[in-house]
């Protein structure tokens, strides 16, 4: 057993407002530079839709992530020799237009315009060429289903569903998917980098691009199945989400989660067994990856685990944080949260609690499972998104959420707590009353101190900090 700690995030999609507040501070602080205009380390997509960059989920196009054969992992885009032989022209690289061509406006024209009969108008201007341009696509083009009647059929999460049916007005459904780098346990971006510039931090698992070693071979961009490494077209190097490590190191949470208006984000530490990473990632059936991933997570209250972890040098601060970690609870203990596209086999570490959605008919005399099938968002769609197509874990999470609501209603409004609700929902006995109240606190009340439990980093040697400025992940 090789115990490692990992910084993780859980997003409760049931409460996401799609307000984009999370994206803004991230953009302002990390990517408001030339060459990075088009980068959104955090972006919020409306689903269904093809997202940002276009079709990022379609690995038939970009060939990101891993494939598995005989319990061994292979990069989907080809191994070391294949990669080096095509290094001059990476065939799987998206072009900037898949994200969007960045633009601004000639605001000065408003001031310098001579007096005219009509108000002066300003035209969009490409930030690459400086010439005026026609806007074709933007960072959030499909917001609230805009144009999805056309793009939606290409959404891969409709696999096994009649996409056309769900793109009709009467059947349409919608949800938000805020996305950031997953800080994967088996990061395909790092494995794809010929220079070895991408690395995982030993202490907290944050994945960074070493700017001093990046040579611009740009295989990380295509290698990441989530398309969360961005190529800076001005500097010629890659950049990605840094999990706000300058903040987390001092115990503060990331900016996206601190600013989240819906208070849907949880940040904390989990412990896992690093020796079993490839075993979990290479499960023959993609549906087995999620359970295998939960299985390699370790219980931070288990005395054996604690003893081993201490021996292996994991700091007390991290162990304590793991014990109080909201993400450990949501991912492993209860478990309500699910990984985004586990079938990409990178073992992502930003997980999602699936959203409930409006019921189309009444719930009376219906079993929980029937009720779920009656929700506006097809369970199969969520399963394709969060469980490699396996409906069982999605149903389990949604049932938890439904039972939680019904039970709290009986407790708070009707003042007659009805424990049978929990049993009827087909829940295992693990979800007893104190746990329900705890989950309620965490998900519904969601106090700041409960959402974010972040250990400070061990005190680094600060002598050469100035010299190293600009190396670790961002300019």
């Amino acid at each position, binding site marked *: 057993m090789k115990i490692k*700690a990992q910084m993780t995030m859980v997003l409760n999609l049931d409460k996401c407002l799609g307000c984009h507040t999370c994206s803004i501070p991230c953009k302002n602080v990390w990517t408001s530079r030339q060459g990075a205009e088009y980068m959104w380390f955090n972006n919020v997509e409306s689903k269904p839709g093809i997202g940002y960059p276009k079709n990022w989920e379609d690995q038939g196009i970009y060939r990101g992530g891993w494939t598995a054969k005989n319990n061994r992992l292979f990069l989907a885009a080809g191994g*070391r*020799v294949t*990669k*080096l032989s095509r*290094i*001059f*022209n*990476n065939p799987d*690289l*998206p*072009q*900037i237009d898949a994200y969007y061509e960045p633009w601004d406006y000639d605001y000065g024209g408003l001031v310098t315009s001579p007096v005219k009969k009509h108000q002066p108008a300003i035209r969009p201007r490409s930030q*690459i*060429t400086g*010439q005026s341009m026609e806007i074709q696509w933007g960072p959030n083009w499909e917001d609230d289903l805009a144009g999805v009647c056309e793009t939606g059929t290409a959404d891969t999460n409709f696999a096994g569903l009649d996409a056309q049916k769900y793109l009709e007005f009467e059947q349409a459904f919608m949800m938000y998917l805020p996305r950031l780098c997953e800080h994967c346990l*088996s*990061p395909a971006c*790092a*494995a794809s*980098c*010929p*220079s*070895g510039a*991408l*690395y*995982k*931090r*030993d*202490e*907290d698992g944050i994945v960074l691009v070493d*700017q*001093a070693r*990046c*040579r*611009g*071979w*740009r295989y990380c*961009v295509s290698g990441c199945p989530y398309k969360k490494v961005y*190529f800076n*077209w*001005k*500097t*010629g*190097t890659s950049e990605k989400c840094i999990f706000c490590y300058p903040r987390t190191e001092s115990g503060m949470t990331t900016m996206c989660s601190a600013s989240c208006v819906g208070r849907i984000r949880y940040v904390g530490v989990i412990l896992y067994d690093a020796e079993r990473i490839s075993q979990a990632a290479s499960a023959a059936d993609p549906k087995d990856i999620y359970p295998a991933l939960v299985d390699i997570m370790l219980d931070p209250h288990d005395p054996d685990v604690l003893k081993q972890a201490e021996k292996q*040098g*994991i*700091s007390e601060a*991290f162990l304590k944080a793991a014990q109080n970690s909201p993400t450990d609870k949501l991912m492993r203990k209860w478990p309500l949260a699910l990984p985004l596209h586990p079938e990409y086999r990178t073992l992502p570490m930003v997980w999602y609690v699936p959203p409930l959605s409006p019921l189309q008919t009444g719930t009376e005399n219906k079993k929980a499972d029937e009720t779920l099938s009656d929700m506006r968002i097809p369970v199969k769609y969520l399963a394709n998104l969060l469980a490699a197509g396996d409906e069982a874990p999605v149903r389990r999470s949604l049932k938890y959420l439904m039972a939680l609501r019904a039970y709290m209603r009986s407790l708070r409004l009707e003042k007659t707590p009805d424990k049978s609700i929990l049993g009827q929902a087909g829940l295992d006995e693990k979800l007893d009353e104190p746990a329900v109240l705890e989950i309620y606190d965490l998900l519904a009340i969601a106090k700041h101190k409960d959402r974010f439990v972040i250990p400070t*980093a*061990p*005190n*680094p*040697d*600060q*002598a*050469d900090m100035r010299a*190293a400025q*600009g190396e670790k992940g961002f*300019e």
Partner: protein
Amino acid sequence: MSGFVHILGFIVFPYIALTIFVLGHAWRYVTDWKRWNAASSQFLHKDSLKGGITIFHWGSLLTLVGHAGGMLIPQRIYDLFGISEAAHNFMAHWVGLVAGLLMIAGGGWLLVRRIGQDRIAANTSVHDYVLLALLLVVSGLGLYNVVFTHYDVLYSVAPWIRSIVVLAPNPALMAPVPVSYKLHILSAFVLLAYSPFTRLVHIWSAPVTYLYRSYVIFRKLPGTKGA
């Protein structure tokens, strides 16, 4: 060529160029590490790059290997392996022809793209243009020599290069060499001296370690012994 100019061209200038080459790279690596990369433009425009960049690079790599093999290794050694002078020249001729054609076709393609494609042009520096032009000049002269001037370099240019490398320059070896060869060599030294200030620095970061390093790298925070 008068004796003085000859010495200037085939002792003084090569060493100046090599000095700039070495110090230039060191200076660039230390002061401008943020731009030590291939400055890829593929992200801005994919389709126009593909064919050109590929043939250009295979041509360049072939050229590098060819020059290293043909110039730095003495004919004596080839004789040991039963490769006669005639066979060596025959090989050099055909490899040179292919490599030169690839480089010129590819380089021309890339230059046209840099000038003609809006986005690429907007993101191209003077250095990028000069570099491509210089590469075309050097490889153009090289190809000219392959095709039109059948001069045996194995006992003239090659030993001269080796004399430069081992710091015992012997410019007399270069005296009988045709002008087109001299120009090729001098322009190549200009390219060497210029290269540290261009994107050619990416050559020295060719990622060969990728062939054997472990896929995922873990790194500890500097100055700590783990979390």
